[in-house]
C-alpha cells in the first residue's frame, strides 16, 4: 500500500466517510465589497502605504510619475520590469534603467546588483495599502524582490477596495498565473528583541506611485 492510499484510508476511516463520497456543500465564501469612490480609494491606498513607512505620490499625469522616478533613480542603477505600462509612459527610457530582460541569468545578475527595482502592479488594495503582483513574462518575480528599493507605478483604475474585490474578480488566480504575491509595505523583521528593522531580505524602501 502506498503512503497515499494509507493516508486516505485512515482519513476516511476516522471520519467515517466512503471513498469518493461527495461532501455536503461548503459554507458560501464570505465576499463583501463596499462601495468606495475612486477618489477615496486613491486616498486610502496612499494613506495606508504611508502608515507602513512607504513613500507615495499621487501623480496627476504620467509625466509627473516619470519625473518622480527619474529623481530617485538619478545616479543609481535600476531594473524595470517588462510591464507595457512602464514602456508606454517612458520609465524604461530613463538613464541608468535597464529593462527588457528575457534571459533568466541576465535578469538575476541585473536585479542582484541594481539599487532599485521598478514594476507596475496588476492591482492595488486600498484597504491595506497592498500591491498585487501576478508573475508573467511582463512582471518577473525578482524585480520587486532583490533590489533594496522597490518603486511601483500603478494606474489609479487598478485600485480595488480590498481582498474581497480581488478574489471576486479572480476567483481562481491559479488559472491565470503561477504566482500571485501581495506586497504590503517594506520588508521587515522584529526578530531580535522586538526591534523593528526594515529591509531584512526584501526591499526596505518602497514607493507607490498612483497615476491618475
Amino acid at each position, binding site marked *: 500500500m502506498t503512503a497515499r492510499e494509507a493516508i486516505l484510508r485512515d482519513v476516511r476511516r476516522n471520519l467515517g466517510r466512503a471513498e469518493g463520497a461527495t*461532501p455536503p456543500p461548503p459554507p458560501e465564501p464570505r465576499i463583501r465589497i463596499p462601495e468606495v469612490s475612486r477618489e477615496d480609494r486613491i486616498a486610502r491606498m496612499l494613506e495606508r502605504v504611508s502608515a507602513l513607512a512607504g513613500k507615495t505620490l499621487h501623480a496627476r499625469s504620467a509625466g509627473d510619475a516619470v519625473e518622480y522616478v527619474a529623481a530617485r533613480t538619478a545616479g543609481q542603477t535600476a531594473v524595470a520590469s517588462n510591464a507595457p505600462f512602464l514602456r508606454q509612459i517612458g520609465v524604461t527610457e530613463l538613464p541608468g534603467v535597464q529593462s527588457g*530582460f528575457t534571459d533568466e541569468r541576465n535578469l538575476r545578475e541585473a536585479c542582484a546588483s541594481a539599487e532599485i527595482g521598478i514594476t507596475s502592479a496588476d492591482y492595488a488594495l486600498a484597504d491595506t495599502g497592498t500591491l498585487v503582483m501576478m508573475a508573467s513574462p511582463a512582471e518577473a518575480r525578482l524585480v520587486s524582490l532583490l533590489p533594496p528599493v522597490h518603486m511601483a507605478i500603478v494606474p489609479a483604475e487598478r485600485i480595488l477596495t480590498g481582498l474581497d474585490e480581488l*478574489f471576486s474578480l479572480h476567483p481562481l488566480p491559479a488559472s491565470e498565473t503561477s504566482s500571485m504575491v*501581495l506586497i*504590503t*509595505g517594506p*520588508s521587515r*523583521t522584529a526578530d531580535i528583541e522586538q526591534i523593528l528593522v526594515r529591509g531584512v531580505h526584501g526591499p526596505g524602501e518602497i514607493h507607490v506611485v498612483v497615476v491618475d
Partner: protein
Amino acid sequence: MSTTFDRKIDATLSDPRLQNAIYKATGRLMSHRKIAVDSDVLPEFEELRTQANAVKRHTIENLDWYLEQFERNVLAHGGHVHWARTGTDVADVILGLAKSRNASLIVKSKSMTTEEIDLNERLEHHGLESVETDLGEYIIQLKHERPYHIVAPALHLTRYDVANVFEKKLGVENETEIENQTMIARRVLRDKFLRADIGISGANFLIADSGAVALVENEGNARLTTSAPKVHIAVAGIEKLIPRAQDLATFLKLLGRSGTGQPLTVYTSFLSGPRREDEVDGPEEFHVILLDSGRTKLLADPDKRQSLYCIRCGACLNHCPVYRKIGGHSFPWVYSGPIGAIITPQFHGVESEPGLPFASSLCGACAEVCPVKIDIPKILLELRADVKASEKRHAVNEAERAVFRTFAYVASRPKLWQRATKLAARLGPRGQGYLKKVPGFMNVGPVRAWLSQRDLPAPAEKSFREMWKERGR
C-alpha cells in the same frame, strides 16, 4: 507533572531577564492584536471567526475529498504531490529529489511542520546544507535550539546572544547593534539564496480548488526561497487545506491580525506550480509533500479533531497566563502554549507527558482569541480525563505507580535517559528492532505491563542527540 517540565519552568521563573522578555513580547503582540481587531476598524471580526470555523470544520470533516481535489489541481498545473506518513518519508522524498538533481544547498523558510519533524537535522545528516532564512529561525538554527514561540522563534534571546553566536559561527566582529546584525544576516543569506539548488517552504494554507500553497511572512525570505532556486518544495500537514481561493478573503484577514496585529503581513504568496511559458524567472519544479505524522489519528475523535483547525497564529500563546510565565521551552514539543498543550498529547499519547493538560488554569483566554474558534479549554478537560483513564489502566497499584514515576523521571532527564538507553542498547536488540527486554532497573511491574501493550522503540545505534553533537563539531 513531569519533571522536565518542572525543571525548565523553574529555570524560566528564576530568570528575571527572560521573564521580562516574554512579558514584553507577548504583551506587545496582544496590544497590537487588540487594536487590529477592534470593532471600530473591523466590525466583521466575529463574523469572520465564525466563517473561518465553519470552513475549517467542513474541510476537516471531508478532508479526503479536498486532499484529492488539491492533488488533481497541483498536477494540472505541472506540479508534483508526494504523500508522507512520517518525517522520515518527508526526508526521503527530499533526499531523492536532491540526489537526482545533484543538489547540495537548500534554503528554507520558516515552517513549524518541518521543525516538528526535525527536517534540517535529517537532511544535514545526509550531507546536505539546509539553511533557515527567517532571521529568528536562522539565529536559533545557529544556536541549535528550537523555536521559543510559533511566530517569534528567537523571542528569548538578546542582541548579545545574537552577537556571540554570529561571532562564533559566522566569523564576524562581535556586533551588538540590531540593525547591523540584521544586515549581516541579509548579506550571508542573500548569497545562499542566489546559490541554492532547492527552496523548502511550509504552507499556511493549501487551496484545494487551485492546487496552490499560500505563504504569509514579513521578511521576504519565503518569497526568495520560492522564487530563486530551480526547485520549490512545500512541506505541509494534511490539515492545512481550505476549499477555495476565495476563502483566503476570510483567513488572511484573521491570520495577520491575530498573530501580530497586521491587517496583512508584508508578503502573501499564492503559489500554484512551476513558472509558466515565457516567464523569465521562478522555479522550474514545484513539489508539495503532504504529511500525516499523526494527523489522521487526531481525526478519530469528533470533538478533539477541531485541534486541526489551527492556523498557527500564536495568539493563544500570547494571551495565556501560563505561557507568559513559563515560556516556550518549558513545553515538551515544538508546539508550545495552549495549542501545544492540546496537540502534544494527541500526537504522542497522553502518557508521554501526562502533566501537560494540567498546565493550564482554564481561564479561557485562548479560546476567546482563537481566530478559528478552537475550544481549547474543553479539549484540555477531555485530555485530563484521558490522562486519568490511562493512569488507571497502566498503574495497577500505588507502589507500582511510584516505580512508573521513577521511569518517567529517568525518561524525562536527557542525561539519565541517555545513559539508560545506552545501557539498553548494549543489552537489547539493535537497529530496527523493538525492545522487549529492558535493563533491570527499568524492568519493573508497570513498565513491563506497559511494554506488553506496546513495544518501546529500540534505541538507534547512535541517538539523535549524539548525531547532533557530532555534527556540531
